[in-house]
């Protein structure tokens, strides 16, 4: 028998998409039955009370959560988000309901032992509810009480050999696409770079000393499956320099209809016969391709590596061999001054373990941003305030036309003193000898 009546939430149990309400109810039932005979360390009925408080929100159309300043376990400045219910008497099971972020393996591959071990900890010491995963990529354990935080951390580190993720003004838990593990487009080992940099920057992840949050994301190719360019302050996006590799026989097979275009991604509708000229060559944004009916040619110097032709004919075209990545800096969501996309900083960087070239760029950016960034200012905003030129300067990056969409349309150039012959110390007396007052 449910603890709270939830007539509104019950209406979210029908319909085909998996119902989170049904799932929370299932957890409530399983905790009540307690087949393992656990001494639950937080109220056994907290899933019931979560449904109760959510039903109240559905009735009033207002949230019932308050923020708390709890940050983490001892010595860490992130990894835990404090949450309190503003109706604790009605819903004592969720009166204190803190979140813990657990570091996910990059690419999010698991075995069932890892997941079951984690579930066992969370069964005993938490609500039994999670997010798989949070927006940044962590495993999110949803709802426990303060005395459990250190115990959970102890079990995670001692028994499962896994750490917390980040929150607050620190390096957030980095995330990568699945990369070379199962994708033919991966231009570098995204998972390894993500793992290596996460390990190398543990101090920055756990002990906040930045003006604001800082995110790394690693995409293996310009398709951008982890949205690095849109969602991370420091985006590493795979690319290549040499020719796209062409298998002309396979191109002909696509042209003749023997292979489904776009890896079958459009097979749900009859789009008519595949038209290589119209669908690939004419859609190339830099017009670098030619198709004469039997041979496809690509002028590499004009190719901007947008991936369209490769996506459309993956059996015929492959990424080049001189592989690495582009680094784009400064993406953020709209608050406050508007959304920003990552801006291209390093056109091409080699991505070889242990990634010293990439780490140098990061160190330079952090040294600058930690010194110059204002409180609560993302690095993208610091760039806007202090100029892209400044970012080039602190990262020792030579300016090039690939950094811009177009040159500036005003002549208000801030020249440096040393760029002008004689500098800015001028001889007034000499000037006056030529000009009267």
């Amino acid at each position, binding site marked *: 028998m449910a603890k709270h009546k939830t007539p509104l939430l019950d209406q979210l149990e029908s319909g085909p998409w*998996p119902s989170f309400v049904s799932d929370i109810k299932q957890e409530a039932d399983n905790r009540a039955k307690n087949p393992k005979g656990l001494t639950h360390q937080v109220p056994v009925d907290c899933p019931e009370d979560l449904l109760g408080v959510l039903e109240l929100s559905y009735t009033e159309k207002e949230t019932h959560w308050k923020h708390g300043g709890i940050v983490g376990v001892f010595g860490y400045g992130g990894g835990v988000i404090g949450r309190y219910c503003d109706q604790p008497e009605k819903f004592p099971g969720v009166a204190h309901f803190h979140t813990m972020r657990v570091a996910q393996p990059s690419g999010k591959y698991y075995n069932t032992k890892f997941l079951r071990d984690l*579930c066992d900890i969370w069964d005993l010491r938490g609500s039994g509810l999670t997010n798989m995963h949070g927006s940044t990529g962590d495993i999110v354990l949803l709802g426990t009480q303060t005395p459990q935080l250190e115990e959970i951390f102890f079990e995670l580190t001692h028994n499962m050999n896994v750490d917390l993720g980040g929150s607050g003004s620190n390096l957030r838990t980095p995330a990568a696409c699945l990369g070379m593990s199962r994708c033919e487009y991966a231009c570098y080992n995204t*998972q390894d770079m993500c793992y290596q940099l996460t390990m190398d920057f543990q101090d920055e992840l756990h002990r906040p000393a930045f003006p604001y949050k800082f995110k790394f994301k690693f995409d293996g190719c310009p398709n951008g499956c982890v949205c690095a360019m849109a969602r991370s302050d420091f985006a590493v996006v795979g690319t290549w320099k040499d020719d796209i590799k062409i298998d002309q026989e396979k191109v002909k097979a696509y042209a003749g209809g023997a292979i489904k275009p776009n890896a079958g991604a459009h097979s749900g509708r009859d789009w008519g016969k595949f038209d290589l000229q119209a669908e690939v060559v004419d859609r190339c944004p830099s017009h670098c391709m030619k198709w004469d009916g039997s041979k496809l040619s690509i002028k590499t110097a004009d190719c901007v590596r947008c991936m369209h032709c490769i*996506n459309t004919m993956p059996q015929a075209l492959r990424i080049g061999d001189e592989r690495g990545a582009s680094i784009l800096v400064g993406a953020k969501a709209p608050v406050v001054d508007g959304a920003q996309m990552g801006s291209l900083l390093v056109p091409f960087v080699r991505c070889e373990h242990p990634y010293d070239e990439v780490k140098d760029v990061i160190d330079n950016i952090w040294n600058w941003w930690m010194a110059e960034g204002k409180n609560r200012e993302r690095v993208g905003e610091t760039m806007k305030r202090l100029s892209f030129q400044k970012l080039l300067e602190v990262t020792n990056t030579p300016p090039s036309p690939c950094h811009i969409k177009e040159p500036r349309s005003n002549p208000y150039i801030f020249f440096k003193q040393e760029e002008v012959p004689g500098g800015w110390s001028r001889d007034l007396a000499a000037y006056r000898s030529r000009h009267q007052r």
Partner: protein
Amino acid sequence: MDRNDKGFIATGYNPQKPMENRISDIGPHKYDTYFPPVIKKNFGKWLYHEILEPGILMHVAEGGDKVYTVRVGGTRTMSISHIRELCDIADKHCGGFLRWTTRNNIEFMVTDEGAAKALRDDLNGRKFPGGSFKFPVGGTGAGISNMVHTQGWVHCHTPATDASGPVKCVMDAVFDEFKSMRMPAPVRIALACCINMCGAVHCSDIGLVGIHRKPPMVDHEWADKLCEIPLAVAACPTAAVRPTQVEYKGAKVKSVGIKEDRCMYCGNCYTMCPALPISDGEGDGIAIMVGGKVSNRISFPKFSKVVVGYIPNEPPRWPTLTKTVKKIVEVYAANARKYERLGDWAERIGWETFFKLTGLEFTHHLIDDFRDPAYYTWRQSTQFKF
């Protein structure tokens, strides 16, 4: 583990000596610890892939090995009972391995097409007692994949809407498109329950964003008791919050004042100070943004643009929201060219035509008036459509 008389089970952590026996800074598990054998063997050697049917991918490696991936939609908010069932399935079919995608989908991998189909049928056959699928197979190619979203009323303190609920309603409404691949291009839908967008939706084909429309209230009785006023002041990104003294029940009390026309309803001050509540049943709702993308394919990545300024919260099923999303999807699907993302289509036909075709009302709320970037969205040309 020790158990004290109150039932508290201690692990060995000693609060008197927190650094004793502490393990820290160990990070995540290494990514290749949990690779299925076929993934481990063919790492970096994949040649090409094919989507065999909605929800089933086949990747082929240089040596001829094949891996079949079955993708299912997951709810981001997920119980351990559900995770344990996923583990049972992975143990039964996949040697105990599984993975999650960036968009909250779950992927199971096998090396045989027949096994993939048996797995698919097993997954599609499991339902919750209320009737919804537990593990619907789909979400691939030119269709609508799973939505990414935030916490909403389930766990957040500044949401202007719920997240899991509207997501359930929208995914119910577009479920056929999750199960098929008949869109002109992938359609990525995302929901953030307030403008802070802890789950960024600003580059989605369709981004749903919770918005508040009323500045926070000031609880003068409690402001100075609950909060440190300088912190609440510093939290405001637009300098709308300032310290002040007010008369409260005959006494002068320290509190804050809010310059209401400067407030952008972000809720940051409420985070710092619970005496500044922002949520409001009548004021809060959802804005719809469209046309963003993160891929570099054909066109540059781009931001989503607001096309509906406000839709009220209508729990539990959000009928106006779901109807509007469905309409946008249908008009896009009927009119866009193959490979054309929603934003590329809207730009090609022009926003005048976009509003005409979708029937969405164009209001002054949709014209940017926020700081410098606004100017660049106005039309500096005589080229337009009547």
